């Protein structure tokens, strides 16, 4: 790992660790807290930009390459914007600094996760990313938070357990946790396939892949929406990148055997996600099931792992996903806090009440639906192109049809916001900083549109990764 990258991660984590301490001593306000955290983000961002490919420290465990730099930088931006929105929404809450501290540490975990090249560091990073989020979900938001937090903790613990079992099998065969060593020493063996399936199951929990997706919507519905933005947007994308590294760097020997498993999981996951999303009344659950469906789309790219386009598909979809899902949940969070809008009925006429926020929410929904020129469109094009290139036209067709059906519920939210008369009369909370909340969300919208047209950065990054794994 490059020293600059590590320094960036550490600065972020330390900012997070000291924020509650500073708060206890000096009783800082929300604004001061956000400034301190922003400094941490900016420093970390600079250091990550400065880091180079060659690594000096912890080379056994982490790597710094184009993918980790690029995705890491985007994760930082998304997390920073999330931080700003959470601060501005919850500024009066006395635990807000603790919440933000968890966010920072979890983001540091995500940065480590996307650069892990060893199962030990991968699992540690994954837990570093997850541990603070347990706290964040439990963060007293309403009665459901407790249930959500417990559910999340147990399913996540189970996931790690299952994954550890798979990893220990690999260790038993090769005597190493390192991806490179594994890749060179693994050969076709039923036991390795078994180990891979356990590892996949572990990832499946984290990524809400069918049939491990049940906790997802409950948790996303119960937790504070700002936290969910981190949970479903940032940490899921990080987990996708980690899974990509596992498949391409550690398990190339058996990757062909995984194709069909991935294809099947993709088809079922996206169909289940979309069908259940259609049946929901609460917007948070719709977004939650749409997140399940999006996991399915990304799995299509995994299913096409024999062709170079699949890496592009995975990276692009993760990139788009970081912003569109995070931002969509943040919009939901603001609507919930200001208007108490939870269900589809509450969303009626919000376009009139909050013209700018609703317009931004619409952009994120259209991106999720895959309408050009947003990044969500072009990323889907790459995902489906990968499937077609790998000879799985049927899978691409299922994916495309799913994507078309999913438009129904995204456009339904748009319909409620713009075409119906408002039902909510008065805002339940008056947000003095509402003007500012628009800024981070607009930044994310602009990034989505720019990445939807200028595809170079993502493609360059994925080409670098392809060169590295020799595809």
């Amino acid at each position, binding site marked *: 790992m490059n020293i600059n990258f590590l320094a960036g991660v550490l600065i972020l984590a330390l900012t997070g660790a000291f924020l509650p301490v500073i708060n206890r001593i000096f009783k800082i306000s929300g604004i001061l807290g956000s400034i301190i955290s922003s400094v941490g983000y900016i420093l970390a961002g600079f250091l990550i930009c400065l880091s180079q490919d060659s690594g000096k420290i912890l080379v056994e465990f982490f790597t710094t390459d184009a993918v980790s730099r690029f995705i890491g930088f985007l994760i930082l931006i998304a997390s920073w914007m999330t931080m700003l929105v959470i601060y501005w929404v919850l500024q009066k809450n006395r635990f807000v600094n603790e919440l933000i501290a968890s966010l920072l540490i979890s983001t540091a975990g995500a940065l480590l996760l996307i650069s892990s090249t060893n199962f030990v560091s991968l699992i540690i990073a994954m837990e570093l990313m997850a541990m603070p989020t347990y706290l964040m979900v439990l963060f007293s938001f309403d009665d459901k938070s407790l249930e959500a937090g417990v559910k999340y903790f147990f399913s996540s613990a189970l996931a790690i357990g299952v994954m550890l079992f798979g990893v220990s099998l690999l260790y038993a065969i090769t005597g190493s946790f390192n991806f490179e060593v594994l890749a060179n020493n693994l050969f076709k063996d039923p036991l390795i396939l078994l180990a891979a399936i356990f590892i996949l199951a572990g990832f499946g929990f984290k990524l809400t892949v069918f049939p491990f997706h049940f906790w997802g919507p409950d948790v996303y519905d119960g937790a504070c929406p700002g936290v969910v933005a981190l949970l479903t947007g940032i940490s899921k994308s990080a987990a996708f990148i980690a899974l990509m590294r596992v498949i391409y760097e550690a398990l190339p020997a058996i990757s062909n055997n995984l194709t069909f498993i991935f294809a099947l999981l993709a088809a079922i996951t996206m169909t289940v996600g979309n069908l259940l999303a259609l049946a929901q009344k609460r917007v948070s659950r719709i977004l939650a099931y749409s997140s399940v469906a999006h996991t399915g789309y990304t799995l299509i790219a995994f299913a096409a792992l024999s062709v170079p386009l699949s890496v592009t598909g995975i990276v692009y979809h993760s990139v788009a996903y970081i912003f569109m899902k995070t931002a969509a949940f943040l919009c939901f969070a603001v609507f919930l806090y200001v208007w108490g809008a939870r269900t589809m009925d509450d969303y009626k006429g919000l376009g009139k009440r909050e013209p700018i926020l609703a317009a931004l929410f619409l952009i994120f929904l*259209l991106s999720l639906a895959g*309408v*050009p*020129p947003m990044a969500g*469109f072009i990323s889907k*094009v790459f995902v*489906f*192109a990968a499937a*077609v*290139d790998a000879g799985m*036209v049927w899978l*691409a*067709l299922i994916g*495309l*049809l799913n*994507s*078309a*059906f999913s*438009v*129904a519920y995204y*456009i*339904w939210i*748009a*319909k409620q916001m*713009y*075409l*119906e008369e408002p039902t909510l009369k008065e805002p339940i909370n008056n947000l003095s900083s509402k003007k500012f909340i628009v800024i981070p969300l607009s930044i994310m919208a602009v990034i989505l549109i720019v990445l939807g*047209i*200028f*595809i*170079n950065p993502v*493609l360059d990054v994925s080409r670098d990764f392809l060169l590295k794994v020799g595809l």
Partner: protein
Amino acid sequence: MVLLSMILVPVIAAPFAYLAEKISKDLPKYISLAVSFFLALCTTYLVVKYPGSGFAFEEFYPIYPPLDFNLHLAVDGISLVLLVITSFLAITVTLSSWNVEKSGAYFFLILLFLGPMVGVFVSLNLLWFFIFWEFTLVPMFFHIGIWGAENRIYAAMKFFIYTHLASVFLLLGIVVLFLNTHTFDFLNLAGVSLDTSVAKLVWILMFIGFAVKMPIVPFHTWLPDAHVQAPSPISVFLAGLLLKMGAYGLLRWELFVLPEESKFFAPLMAFIAVLTIFYAGFRALAEDHIKRMVAYSSINHMGFVLLGLSVLTASGISAAIYEMVGHALIISLLFMVAGYIHHKTHTWYISELGGLMKKIPVLMTMFVIGVLAAVGLPGTAGFVGELTVMVSAFEYYGWIMIIVPLASALSAGFFMWMLQRAVFGPLKDSFKGLSSLKELSLIENIPLAMYILAFILVGIVPSVVFDVYNLSVDTLSQLFK
């Protein structure tokens, strides 16, 4: 820069139109009108400077050359004709929407629609074509959903989901095509040789996408709903531009890219076309709702366009493009007048109308002229379009096409019957004291007069249209030889 600015200026002006409402209620429409005139000016420049054949005014903005994802813009005669229609309709629609409510959002969406619309007609990159194509749905969805009639929300949702679903097939076709050719560029794609089974798959996938947009039977069901609910100026965009996108896409990206497969599927296209012509004709005959009837007559005319395209000769394709132009002008007039009739009499139903000629003779005269043009009165665009399509179909398919003129008789039948019931005859008692039943204002009459002048002009001097694209069609139709 001309073509790029024609795409970007409306899109950039759109937010300003939205914000301008805060300053003055009238400002958005002036911005929209200014942008429409800008488009018209650019189009005039292009028409004047166009060398007569091939692609001209090429602009190339590399975005990601390794995957051939570049903004490649150019016009040939075919796109030029459609650009003329686009800018012409932009002006007339803005004028027709002069007194619209919530004008900021309305003209915001109009401008947001126009930019990608130009993009569809000038893009030589298939992926960009699709991006523009798909984005036009969003403003249209809100137009129908916000300013439409009672069932607007149902119609808007149906419109969006239906046409988006169709686009999915188109997109899959594009992906398969790209993976087999590694290019999105029309200049490389035209006449590309592909594995037969792959090419047929691509052809069918893309055809579904274009067929829904055109729309042709049996993919047409979204159209009557969308038209009936949409406000009349938006119906003009729907019929005049959105449907043309389907026909243009079919022509540019299917017939010219996959000529062999097009030849193979030509009889199928012709069959569907004839089916569409008759089905829509009979449906229109049975229709009591005046706007729905016009919508079905629009499907009927798009059947003629498809028939012309299916002939795959220079004359057939020329005829189809001419029919597209004529249809855009005539159907726009009919939709506008149908909307005004509802506005003035508060009813959509032909059976409840009667004797309107006595109260509003100027508007009704224009309506009658429009109807006569639609049934193909010589001297109007309708006549030239239908005649050339029928002649070329006859030349290519032979005697079987003798049935098509019968469809013309059918359309004459339903239109004349409608005129007799709604326009002529004694005035209905219920309308006698109706204060809203009066002639249009000058500003409302201008677009209608513009349509009439335009379709009579191109009807009397068809060469003004044909000359623009004849050479382009000739060059491209060499592919079918």
